[in-house]
């Protein structure tokens, strides 16, 4: 389990995070939900060790294998699809094995036949699927996702969510996903932390009562919970 204890972050004279406590459990998808610009990405970056908190502690991240899916694909433009995947694989894996692993995951994300394509030759959706393949290829213990679907249209967003779930179900690493979309949070996560406006504090922790499969707008419970979160926490 990864624990955040009393995380504070101050940029120059602006308080961004104000005493955040959270727990990210193995085999569970946790969503961090909050208004745009409230410091969700900062919190994710602190948890992943990309930036230091002003105060507070991140426990349990030592020696953990991590993956990260950003808002944009962040692919190396001078490398092909396979080379982009190989980049994150450990150096001690034999070259032919590496290639096989890459081709396998490309197949899973529907990019077979695009092995030798450069990012500039892929569409936005394809690039984001490649970025997702990169995150899952490393067998990470904890996977961070920073609003990874926000630049995709509704149809592609749905496809990506389905793809994410199918990849996640294979190993079930801990996933922390940042989003401002209540629907997305309820569809994907087992636990939701709702953050306030800046300086961000946790205003509510919700356990999603619905298991995978029953999370749908057609489910009355899903709709009720969605409206509750919007009205009670995000619009107040």
């Amino acid at each position, binding site marked *: 389990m990864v624990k955040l204890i009393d995380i504070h972050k101050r940029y120059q004279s602006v308080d961004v995070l104000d005493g955040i406590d959270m727990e990210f459990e193995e085999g569970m998808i946790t969503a961090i939900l909050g208004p745009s610009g409230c410091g969700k990405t900062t919190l994710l970056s602190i948890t*992943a*060790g*990309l930036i230091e908190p002003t105060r507070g502690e991140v426990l349990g991240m030592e020696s953990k*294998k*991590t*993956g*990260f899916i*950003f808002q*944009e694909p*962040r692919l*190396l*433009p*001078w*490398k092909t699809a396979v080379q982009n995947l190989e*980049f*994150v694989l450990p*150096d001690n894996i034999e070259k032919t094995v590496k290639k096989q692993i890459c081709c396998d995951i490309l197949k899973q994300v529907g990019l077979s036949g695009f092995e030798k394509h*450069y*990012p*500039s*030759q892929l569409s936005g959706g394809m690039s984001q699927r490649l970025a997702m393949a*990169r995150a899952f290829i*490393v067998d990470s213990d904890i996977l*961070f996702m920073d609003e990874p679907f926000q630049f995709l249209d509704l149809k592609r967003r749905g496809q990506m969510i389905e793809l994410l779930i199918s990849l996640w179900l294979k190993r079930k690493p801990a996933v922390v996903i940042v989003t401002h979309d209540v629907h997305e949070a309820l569809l994907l996560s087992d636990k939701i932390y709702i953050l306030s406006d800046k300086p961000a504090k946790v205003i509510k922790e919700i356990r999603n009562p619905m298991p995978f499969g029953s999370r749908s707008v057609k489910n009355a419970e899903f709709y009720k919970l969605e409206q509750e979160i919007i009205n009670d926490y995000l619009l107040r």
Partner: protein
Amino acid sequence: MIFPSPYEVLLSFVSIIRSDIFLSAVFNTVKTIFLSFAIAFIPALALGILSKLVPVVYIVMDGISAIARSIPTVAIILMALLLLPVSLTPLVICFFVVFPVLYTNIAEGLVSVDGRLLEMAKSYRIKKRKIITDIYIPSLRPFLAAGIRSSLGLSFKIIVTAEVFNFVNSSTIGAQMYMHKIQIDIAGIIAWTIIVVILSLLVDFALKKLFERSEIRW
């Protein structure tokens, strides 16, 4: 004085190519160009990397290279001729002209490396060596290509100019041009100029092809 006809220039061009001095003059000049380029390239690369790591070095070197770029080349040539052994002057002059161009390209190339890609590499805990070979070097490549091509082109001009003032070694292109000047042989000067332009274009073409081969489609 009558400006030579193209035919006279052609005759002069053929006679220079057939002369005993031609190959040794070309060899000596090209050797000096590449040697001086190498002498400028190594510290430019080292200081470029250092300026990425230490912000103070970037600020100081930015000022120094701006000053070095604005010093008139003829001032450097005259000072070098007065203060240094004559055989060293082309090298030193070339260093002062080429170094700022190379340094600026390398330093700017390193500064412009996409921070989002570095952050991605950090999030996947990629080793520093791999970050250098797979992110820094490919990002630097277009800046390096531009810097090397423009500074080698500049080297041809500067070295030949410096050789005109260097009378010790007559087996250089610049010294040969000076000989033709003494004889008021404009056709000879133009013929040597054409040779320099051809050499410079050949080197530039080779570099362009070299960088194109290693270039990536993005």
